[in-house]
């Protein structure tokens, strides 16, 4: 543990705040590491720190390219926004800066956050630091890979159906999707507005709590943002006595045996720590992917209508206005974005609206009810984060449905809008496995506390990914 980048962000902040480390040296250390990153994690690296005073001790944060940062390329990893430098900064980024976390760089991602492997970026894939032939997950793949590889101390990403938790699991780090509305979406380039939520990707649970603490709260620029009911607590629990854990997903098809075994071992630790564990049923969760792939593309098809070559980004095509629109969108969007726009437009088109969109919204209600019922019996719902470990680059690009099923365990919580953390609990085939803990809306402090106790008991070692 001699290297600066082996410190957690909270440890680095504590050293800076105690006067043992200069924020400028810390920034420069990470800036150099980010610049020499060869995984494809970064689309842009800052030249200097924009703000270092505050409780976060000047520890720089890597920011997913989906967030607008004033004067800095913010392209959602899409060719259609090539060269776009917004005139304003996302609220989440602004708040972190104000708390003393300068922007380290913009991280690579699946274009418009649509994907589970980072292979849909308009600017090249990201490689998994545990095995460079494998994907880091997605869509926050650059954020996850940079934190795992130690080219960033911590990062923020966004999660619409698993885009923080799944890459965190595949890269062996912590990822938290907060309660819908906990963090402002202002300045976050929209994908599916009723599901999109910003959250931290970090080395450990304490770092996640610290970043979350400084991002939450109502923002008048996002009318769906909410007052967070308390200050987010830093976790300290070492025992889980009296807590009830409801496990779901150990009997689903398509879960790799190594993932199951690793998750079961971690669930055994929950009991050793004093928790009670029972299996529960979420009867409608298996319909989550189906409902999600109606709702998210439908919202996306509307949100992405704004990319028309008129106000920002690129313009292509000769001839009349319609030809310009169609050519700009044909050349600017990648294949997965086109697929989702088509799917969403189809689902919302005349004659199909009720059968698809209306039905999916009712399934969403049933899934949210499943969780409400579960939380009458248990404090937390526990599931594997991803059915598999990191897969090989190219393995699923020809089969969109197989790719979509990567999010089988993460989508239900997104549809219910509830907070969920993924923490690394071990290795299978030498690759990280993540376990999810979900709780009711605004239970982040309790989730973080329980995850902290489990993290200590598991003792996951991510140092290999930092080389």
């Amino acid at each position, binding site marked *: 543990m001699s290297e600066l980048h082996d410190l957690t962000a909270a440890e680095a902040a504590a050293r800076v705040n105690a006067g043992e480390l200069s924020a400028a040296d810390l920034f420069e250390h990470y800036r150099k590491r980010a610049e020499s990153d060869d995984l494809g994690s970064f689309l842009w690296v800052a030249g200097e720190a924009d703000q270092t005073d505050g409780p976060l001790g000047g520890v720089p944060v890597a920011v997913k390219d989906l967030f607008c940062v004033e004067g800095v390329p913010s392209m959602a990893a899409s060719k259609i926004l090539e060269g*776009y430098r917004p*005139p304003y900064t996302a609220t989440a980024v602004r708040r972190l800066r104000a708390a003393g976390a300068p922007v380290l760089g913009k991280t690579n991602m699946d274009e418009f956050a649509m994907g589970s492997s980072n292979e849909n970026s308009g600017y090249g894939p990201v490689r998994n630091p545990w095995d460079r032939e494998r994907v880091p997950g997605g869509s926050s793949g650059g954020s996850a890979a940079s934190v795992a590889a130690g080219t960033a101390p911590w990062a923020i990403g966004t999660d619409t159906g698993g885009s923080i938790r799944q890459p965190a699991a595949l890269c062996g780090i912590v990822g938290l999707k907060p309660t*819908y*509305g906990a963090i402002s979406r202002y300045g976050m380039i929209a994908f599916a507005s*009723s599901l999109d939520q910003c959250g931290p990707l970090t080395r450990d649970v304490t770092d996640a709590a610290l970043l979350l603490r400084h991002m939450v709260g109502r923002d*008048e620029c996002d*009318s*769906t943002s*909410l007052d967070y009911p308390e200050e987010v607590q830093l976790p300290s629990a070492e025992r889980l006595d009296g807590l009830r854990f409801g496990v779901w997903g150990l009997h689903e098809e398509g879960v790799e045996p190594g993932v199951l075994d690793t998750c079961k071992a971690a669930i055994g630790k929950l009991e050793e720590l004093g928790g009670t564990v029972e299996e529960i049923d979420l009867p*409608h969760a298996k*319909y989550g*992917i*189906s*409902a999600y*792939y*109606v709702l998210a593309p439908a919202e996306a*098809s509307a949100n992405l*209508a704004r990319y*028309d*070559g*008129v*106000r*920002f980004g690129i*313009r292509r095509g000769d*001839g*009349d*206005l*319609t*030809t*310009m*629109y*169609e*050519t700009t*969108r*044909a050349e600017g*969007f990648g*294949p997965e974005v*086109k*697929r989702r726009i*088509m*799917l969403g*437009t*189809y689902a919302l088109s005349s004659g199909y609206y009720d*059968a*698809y969109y*209306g*039905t*999916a*919204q*009712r*399934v*969403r*209600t*049933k899934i*949210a009810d499943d969780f409400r019922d579960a939380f009458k019996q248990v404090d937390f719902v526990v599931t594997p984060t991803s059915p598999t470990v990191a897969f090989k680059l190219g393995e699923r690009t020809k089969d*969109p*449905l197989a790719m*979509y099923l990567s999010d089988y365990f993460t989508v239900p919580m997104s*549809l219910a*809008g509830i907070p969920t953390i993924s923490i690394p609990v071990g290795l299978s085939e030498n690759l990280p496995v993540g376990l999810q803990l979900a709780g009711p809306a605004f239970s982040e402090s309790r989730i973080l506390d329980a995850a902290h106790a489990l993290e200590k008991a598991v003792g996951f070692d991510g140092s290999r990914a930092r080389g």
Partner: protein
Amino acid sequence: MIDRDQVLHVARLARLKLTDEEVERMAVELSAVLGHIEKIGELDLEGVEPTSHVVPVENVLREDKPRPSWPRETMLELAPESSNIGFEVPSPGA
């Protein structure tokens, strides 16, 4: 399940120009995804209220007070083509 003509119709609605190869591929891929999605048809959802939003907030208001907006030049600078008064686009009927 979804044929070439439907793909072309939806592409037109979405203002996407697709190549012939994309049209063929889209028909196959969308059919596969829609086949999976149609599992939700198995459920009895009689009387279930739709959820469009998970957070129970409504009528979020702010003070009705004017405040500065973005300067016109700032926005026009971001556009691929503009004059000093607005965004420039090709004629709809060219």
